[in-house]
C-alpha cells in the first residue's frame, strides 16, 4: 500500500480545474498544522495506556488522513481505533510501532507533494 494516493488530487482537478492547486495546498496546510498534534497525543496516551483517548484521537486522525489520501496511515489508524475501543492493549503495540514509522513518512510525503503542486 502506498503512503499517499492521488484520487483526491484528480477529484479536485475535476471539480475546479483552475483553482485545484490552491485548494489542495490549503487542505494540506490545515492537515500539517493540526494533525501532528493528534499523532503526538496518541503516542502520549499509549505511554499511560489511556485506551479511550487512543480510540477517540485515532478516530479523528483517521478521518483527516482520508481527506488527504494518506491511505497507509488511515488503515493503521482504523486498526488502532478498533483495538483500543475493544481494550486489546497487547495487540496495539505493533500497529502503534508501525504508525510511528508511517506517520512521519506521510507528513514528509505531503509536504513534498505540496511543493510539487505549487511549483507546477
Amino acid at each position: 500500500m502506498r503512503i499517499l494516493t492521488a484520487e483526491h488530487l484528480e477529484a479536485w482537478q475535476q471539480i475546479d480545474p483552475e483553482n485545484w492547486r490552491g485548494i489542495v495546498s490549503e487542505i494540506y496546510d490545515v492537515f500539517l498544522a493540526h494533525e501532528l498534534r493528534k499523532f503526538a497525543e496518541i503516542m502520549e496516551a499509549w505511554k499511560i495506556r489511556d485506551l479511550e483517548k487512543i480510540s477517540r484521537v485515532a478516530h479523528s486522525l483517521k478521518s483527516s488522513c482520508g481527506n488527504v489520501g494518506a491511505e497507509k496511515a488511515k488503515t493503521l489508524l482504523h486498526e488502532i481505533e478498533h483495538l483500543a475501543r475493544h481494550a486489546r492493549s497487547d495487540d496495539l503495540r505493533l500497529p502503534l510501532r508501525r504508525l510511528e514509522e508511517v506517520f512521519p513518512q506521510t507528513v514528509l510525503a505531503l509536504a513534498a507533494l505540496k511543493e510539487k503542486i505549487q511549483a507546477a
Partner: protein
Amino acid sequence: MIEQALTEPGTWRPKILIVEDNPTDVIGPFVLTKQLGLNVALAFNGEQALELLRTTEFDIMILDWGLPGMSGLQLLDRAETARRRGVLKVIVHSGSDLDLTSFARGERYCIVDFWRKPFSVLDMARRMKWLREIRGGA
C-alpha cells in the same frame, strides 16, 4: 477561497451551517459549498453553533454527531428554538455507524440524511449539489 457564485435567477441558495471540530474535515465541504455559491457558516463546537443558531435562520445544518464536549445530540436538544420554527433540516455526519436508536429520532430533530465519513471528494461534491434541492420552511 473559491468565489465562483452561481447567478441563475430564482435559484434558491440555502443558508448552511457546518458544525465540525476537525479543521481537516471542514475545509473540503466549506470550499465546495462556497464554490456552489451557497451561503455557509462554520462552527467548531456546540456552543459556537448554538450562538449562530440563535442569531441566524439557517436552512440546513451539517452536524458532526461526535463533537467533543457538547455532542451532536445534545446540540440538537438545546437548539429548540431553531427546530421549533420548523425550518432547520439536519444532516448528520459521522465516522462511525450510528445505531438505529439514535437515528430513529430523525423525525423529532428533522434529520434528513446521514453522511458517513470519510467520503471521497467527488461524492462530497455530489452531496453538496444535492443540498440546493433541500427546501427549508414548513
